[in-house]
């Protein structure tokens, strides 16, 4: 056994352990299901530890980059199986056209939904708690159009769909185990009810949190009131704690058009740069570190990366991970 093999095995066992520990904390029923789901996947990874942890693709159109990345990871069927329910969390929080780079790229979303359809999933939900009027948001970000095309359901809320409908709508009051500040949250119940959860953030500058990517995107799964509480009670720790409620099974970072300043809403076209990059992986924290490097933000300024690592959401030491870099012609 050489050193590399040893490290890989240790990492795999550690990952398995974390998953078991996390799921054991849930209700027995859910835990059973999760272990069943995860076990074959993890063991498979043990057998053929060839696949990279993170794939970064650049210099292509969103759909082409997505296909290239999924090819490296073994295709969508590695993550989703037939007849499963999938929840996708894109960023569709703003009433801005896709050219402004404020919302997840519609071409990427279309490619994702298409690949899910090819696998033959039962149901796809797109969820977000929007900042502007939700009807306008899903329209301008083109999500409505795409969802209609691929028969996905948009579950979206904003201020107007308020607390009154908790438990009657998609929101649910839950307790996050191990959280300090976000112990009791009103959160989208689909997160725990679904089989696969895919996080599709767009990489942007953020006036408050410095950068918004995988972990910051997870703020859209809680209610509007909660979002305000997050801002009130220590932004970074709360972001990490919300992220720990249900770790995404897959993160797809859209860095095709990135907002380098005046984010996350943006003011005009001068805020947006064409980076033509896409990163896919399971580790939210590592992806956020790579994203910070893309935009040249100091990692230590982005507090939720450290907090997320503390809560076991991933590692910020990217040297531990295999990163496959692909440059399309």
């Amino acid at each position, binding site marked *: 056994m050489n050193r590399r093999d040893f490290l890989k095995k240790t990492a795999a066992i550690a990952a398995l352990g974390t998953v078991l520990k996390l799921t054991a904390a849930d209700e027995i029923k859910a835990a059973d299901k999760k272990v069943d789901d995860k076990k074959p996947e993890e063991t498979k990874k043990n057998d053929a530890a060839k696949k990279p942890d993170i794939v*970064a693709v650049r210099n292509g159109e969103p759909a082409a980059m997505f296909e290239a990345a999924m090819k490296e990871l073994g295709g969508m069927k590695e993550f989703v199986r037939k007849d499963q329910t999938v929840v996708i969390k894109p960023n569709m929080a703003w009433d801005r056209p896709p050219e402004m780079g404020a919302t997840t790229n519609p071409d990427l979303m279309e490619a994702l939904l298409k690949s899910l359809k090819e696998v033959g999933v039962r149901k796809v939900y797109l969820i977000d708690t929007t900042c502007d009027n939700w009807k*306008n948001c899903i329209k301008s970000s083109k999500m409505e159009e795409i969802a209609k095309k691929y028969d996905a359901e948009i579950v979206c809320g904003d201020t107007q769909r308020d607390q009154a409908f908790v438990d*009657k709508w998609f929101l649910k009051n839950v307790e996050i185990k191990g959280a300090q500040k976000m112990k009791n949250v009103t959160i989208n119940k689909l997160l725990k009810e679904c089989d696969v959860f895919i996080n599709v953030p767009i990489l942007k500058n953020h006036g408050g949190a410095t950068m918004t990517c995988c972990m910051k995107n997870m703020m859209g799964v809680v209610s509007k009131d909660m979002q305000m509480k997050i*801002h*009130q009670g*220590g932004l970074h720790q709360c972001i990490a704690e919300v992220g720990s409620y249900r770790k995404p099974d897959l993160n797809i970072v859209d860095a095709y058009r990135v907002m380098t300043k005046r984010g996350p*809403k943006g*003011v005009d076209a001068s805020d947006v740069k064409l980076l033509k990059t896409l990163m896919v992986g399971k580790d939210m924290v590592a992806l956020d570190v790579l994203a910070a*490097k893309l935009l040249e933000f100091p990692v230590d300024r982005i507090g939720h990366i450290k907090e997320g690592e503390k809560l076991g959401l991933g590692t910020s030491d990217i040297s531990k991970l295999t990163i496959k870099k692909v*440059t399309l012609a």
Partner: protein
Amino acid sequence: MKTNGKIWPFVRSSLAGAFFVLILTDFFGWIRFGKAFRLLQFAPSLLNSLALALPAAIVISLIVFLLTFIFGRVYCSVICPLGILQDIVLSVKALFRRKKRGPYHYYDTRTLKRAVFFFVAVLFCFGVATPLVMLLPSSNFFTILSNVFVQGTYQVAQLFGCSLDIKSVDPAPGVFITSIFTLFILIAMTLWKGRLYCNTLCPVGAVLSLPAAFSLFRIQLNQDQCVSCGMCEHVCKAGCIDAKNKVVRNENCVMCGNCLSACARDAIKLVLTKKSAAPKAEQHCDLSRRRFIAGIGGAAVGAGLGLAMSKLGVSRKEADAAKEEPSMPPGAMNRARFNAKCVGCGLCISKCTGNVLRAASLQYGLAGFMQPYMNYDSGFCAFGCSRCNNLCPTGALVPLKRDRKQSTRIGLAHFIPDNCVAYTAEQDCGACGEHCPVGAIVMVDYKSTRIPQINDKLCIGCGACQHICPGINQAKREPAIRVSGVLEQITVEKPVEVEAKTLKSEEDFPF
């Protein structure tokens, strides 16, 4: 002609019912018929002609005026939604009525009508719209609809936990009570004497009674055939038939046609009055000295009272630039102008995308009661939306192109550091800067975090920052950014483009 007259009540109620459905369809947005449809309401189109001289408004108000001159106040029983609402109340009442004979009697309302009308008109001319807001039929109908019926449905649905996708207009207690009270008064007046409201309090009724008194087609009693049996008088909900003296007071007649089918002797008919065959003078115009004095006197008392009130300035709260003023919706342009022109129908409130417009209770002072203001606690002005000013039927809000709306200042944001989590607790937040659509809030370094800095030149006062600000107080909402209204809505500078630095990642992976 006999049969034509008899089918009129049927035609009239079918038309009214259809129109009522159309109004509701447009209101709830099932199908939108556009502005011209909303301008069919006489008061808004007349006010719009005066305020903005919108061609469609001028044409439509002239058409309604002409229609009344030809056929009498058909408008009041076919187009006016509040009139139709009264008829609905009356038909419900009729279900519970056993007696065959109609319940109505002739009454003369001219003195009161003139007093009320001149009171309202004089105050309106002096820039106090409140009495008009309270009495205008279209305003009353729409405020009752949204504040009582829609809001009521919303509350009841909430009580039973149904998540109906209804937009709550969330009226302030004063506004809600006023709307309930108006509905109650209206129903009481209707149950008591039919279309009493239309012939006493309604300003539109007062205006239209002028051409109606001289209309070409009108209902008349045949002096020879009529035996003063009173059958027609008892079914006349407008109380305009004096059977004893065989007179029909056409200025009060709303052309419902109930009398036409009530007469056993065909003595009451819709006839084309010719100059030559004009009836006796007293038939349509009672010129006794007492009547004359009462008519003029009523008008004078109303006008005098209005004049006195406007001069005393009882209801007027002078806008004070130093104090925190409420923001007006975009397109209001000027505070005095807006308060004087808005009739408080609340269409903008019920259609507001950002859920920010609310009916004012005393935010503008009494003179702005029921007029819309921006309540940044309930929402914020959606950047890409300019619905309110484009649908405003009266022209109190000037229609703005999207571009112009996006640079029209409706308020100005102020930073209150003591309420800011970043400033007081040194925590990253940035919710305000995040939501600013024009880049007027820049997050600047402060100790280990960043705090907002407001660029007054760019701020349009949409209130997104105030609405989203969590503030430091967990229990109470005390935002660290407050938007105060402006008295004059000006056009602000366009956001400046800031050059972005080049990134290494544009060339290759930086890792």
